[in-house]
């Protein structure tokens, strides 16, 4: 009998080029994020030269508006932006999936209450809502993670509730209920393993959106605060260079775009595999 590891290796062997490309890119990002201090030629906030230096051997991508090395900041930016986005997405999933599972398992008033709260939250455009709350509670890292996580958990809730509803009606869930199992067991052992595939796929997509939201907030000055290196604010800080035909500010933007595309490739493939479709 094949073990889980063998299975996943075999699955990997059959993956299309797009998924492999996506996985490679993600791997590169992760390595960069984890090993930033080792890879980056200069420190994250270290001022190493004069402002807006062009590309050279000393500064491969030039320097930014304060004279910090662009390449080093992009490398550290991977750590900050991707790390924060990952933490936020995890939190969003924790909140959303537990609430979704509760709604699907308990039904009745619990479902009504949770669903209506989520409806109200979803009725307000998320970026505007985030901006509003952040200006009230103040912009720091923890607040930003919490606000984006809560706002994004509404989508996770919707998905979890919908897919869990299909599982709740199964005889094995009824059998577990009749056995006298508690709520937590039914949610975590009977339902969750059967909806993990769509949730994992959603995780990939949600991560992209969280990532974009953080970058957008940073660009607007309400996200990660200086001097932390962050791709969104790097675009804003150096935007003037574009007027002079220098493409440097586009590089952090391209880094965001590339990761988004890479994740989508992997998610597409994963969805295709788990949906059980044959070609």
């Amino acid at each position, binding site marked *: 009998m094949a073990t889980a590891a063998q299975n996943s290796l075999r699955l990997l062997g059959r993956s299309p080029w797009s998924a492999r490309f996506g996985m490679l890119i993600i791997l590169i990002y992760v390595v960069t994020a984890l090993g930033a201090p080792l890879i980056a030629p200069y420190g994250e906030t270290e001022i190493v030269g004069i402002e807006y230096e062009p590309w050279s051997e000393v500064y491969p991508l030039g320097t930014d508006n304060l004279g910090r090395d662009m390449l080093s900041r992009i490398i550290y930016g991977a750590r900050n932006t991707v790390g924060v986005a990952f933490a936020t997405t995890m939190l969003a999933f924790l909140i959303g999936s537990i609430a979704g599972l509760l709604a699907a398992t308990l039904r009745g008033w619990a479902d009504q209450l949770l669903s209506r709260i989520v409806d109200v939250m979803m009725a307000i455009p998320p970026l505007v809502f985030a901006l509003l709350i952040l200006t009230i509670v103040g912009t720091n890292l923890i607040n930003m993670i919490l606000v984006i996580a809560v706002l994004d958990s509404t989508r996770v809730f919707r998905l979890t509730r919908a897919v869990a509803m299909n599982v709740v009606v199964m*005889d*094995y869930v*009824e059998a577990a209920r*009749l056995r*006298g199992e508690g709520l937590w067991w039914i949610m975590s052992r009977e339902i969750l393993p*059967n909806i993990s595939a769509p949730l994992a796929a959603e995780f990939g997509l949600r991560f992209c959106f969280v990532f974009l939201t953080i970058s957008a907030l940073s660009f607007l000055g309400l996200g990660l605060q200086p001097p932390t290196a962050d791709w969104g604010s790097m675009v804003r800080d150096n935007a003037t260079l574009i007027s002079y035909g220098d493409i440097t500010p586009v590089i952090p933007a391209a880094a965001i775009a590339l990761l988004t595309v890479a994740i989508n490739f992997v998610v597409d493939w994963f969805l295709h595999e788990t949906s059980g479709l044959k070609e």
Partner: protein
Amino acid sequence: MTSAPDDGLLLRIRGLKIEGQTEEGWAEIVHGVDLDLKRGEVLGLIGESGAGKSTIGLAAMGFARDGCRLSAGTIEFDGRELREASAGTTRELRGNRIAYVAQSAAAAFNPAHRLIDQYSEAPVQHGVMGRAEAESDAISLFERLHLPDPETIGFRYPHQVSGGQLQRAMTAMAMSCRPDLIIFDEPTTALDVTTQIEVLAAIRDAVEQFGTAAIYITHDLAVVAQMADRIMVLRHGLLVEEGETRDLLAEPQEEYTRDLLEVRSFQVKERPRPVGETPVLEVRGVTAGYGKTMILHDVSFQIHRQRTVAVVGESGSGKSTVARVITGLLPIREGSVLYKGEPMPGRFTQRNKDQLRRLQMIYQMADTALNPKQRVRDVIGRPLEFYLGLTGAKKRERLRALLDMIEMEPDEYIDRLPGELSGGQKQRICIARALAAEPEVILCDEVTSALDPLVAEEILKLLDRLQNEFSLSYMFITHDLATVRAIADEVVVMHRGKVVESGPRTEMFKPPHHDYTDLLLSSVPEMDPDWLDHLLAEREEMAKQGRVLKAADN
């Protein structure tokens, strides 16, 4: 159009091989089958699930399901090769000269369109007749197929028509172009026995009337005996035996065919109800339902220790609802459920662990009753841990003992996922899960109806053995009277939420009865090829005397 080459052969299949896609690539599932069908002949294809009968049936139209391909051989329909025919050729034939009737008419009809719209689609598309003509033709066909209100039934939507009627409407649709060949894929399997009769009679009548050739696919030998001129027995994608219906039934040559014929010979000796003993489980005057509509009305019966009570009735009779009431899933409006004379709390959430443990349930569909992500060891291990507090070596030991009890090799199966088991094996795991709780009563909800006859019989034998070993009491919910005959001590007949009749098995199978019991009993197909004719004649005779036995939806 070329005419048939010789001897009136309509369909000629030679060396047909079909492959299916698996994780490891293409695997052969039909290994070279030959098939001949004359004009106007009805051929029965019979075999257990996985025998390839449906796949062969579809191949006769030159069609392969997604994930399947016709890899070798020839399929000649009326002199034309279909296996490699162009899409244009097959499109011209399908619906027009070859038609198909699916197992589940409810799933095959588009719920958004009226029957008549779907009926007229094929004749209009193929240019056989215009819309108005098709509609008037539909009415005459509906009439021929004994559909009630033939004038207006076509203007209803599929959900407004009962299952048996829908299946006949589908047959009418297949006949709309007066095809040369119709493929019936288990058309009555999903129906109640009482409804099945009407559909069988209607199909046979129509096929004879128009001289249509047919391939009739089923797993029920008794059904095919009524319908087919000739029978082919298939197993594992190979032909086992072929012969004229009467010869094959009278003198089967192969052992597998004999097994199929002898199925249901298994019978438990009836045990009388013990005197002066409190029943293990008693349902006393229960009325229950959803919202304001009551489904059960004053239902009462008793289950004694080590006895089997069969609750029979057609779908919608409330027999499964009784199980929901007993398990506490559905609250009782009036009456009570008593365990050894003590009333049990109405909701399962109010029952304690011990009350839950004593009452276990086995479901109809083992597929949905087992969590696909849990291995056998977890499925059976959980009740051991949960109810009996077994852990570690003790639990492992008990687990292996349970697998031995259900005749499954522990080393081989203990780590499997449900998806890696066959239908019969899955049902055995469900039995083991129920058994692990060391119950006193097991509710069996149609536990064998989704299984092939030979597998079903093995399951019944297993249940009987376990009953004697552990003094279990069973409540057997079923619509299959053959099962009742095999295993029940007492029978409770339900109809529209009421108990119509109840008593010991031998008495229940002896006339005279309540009309409904008679209808139910007489509707079970028998192996005798003349059974349907005799039955229909008998019912007609009775109707003349003013006693009409007919399924509710007619």
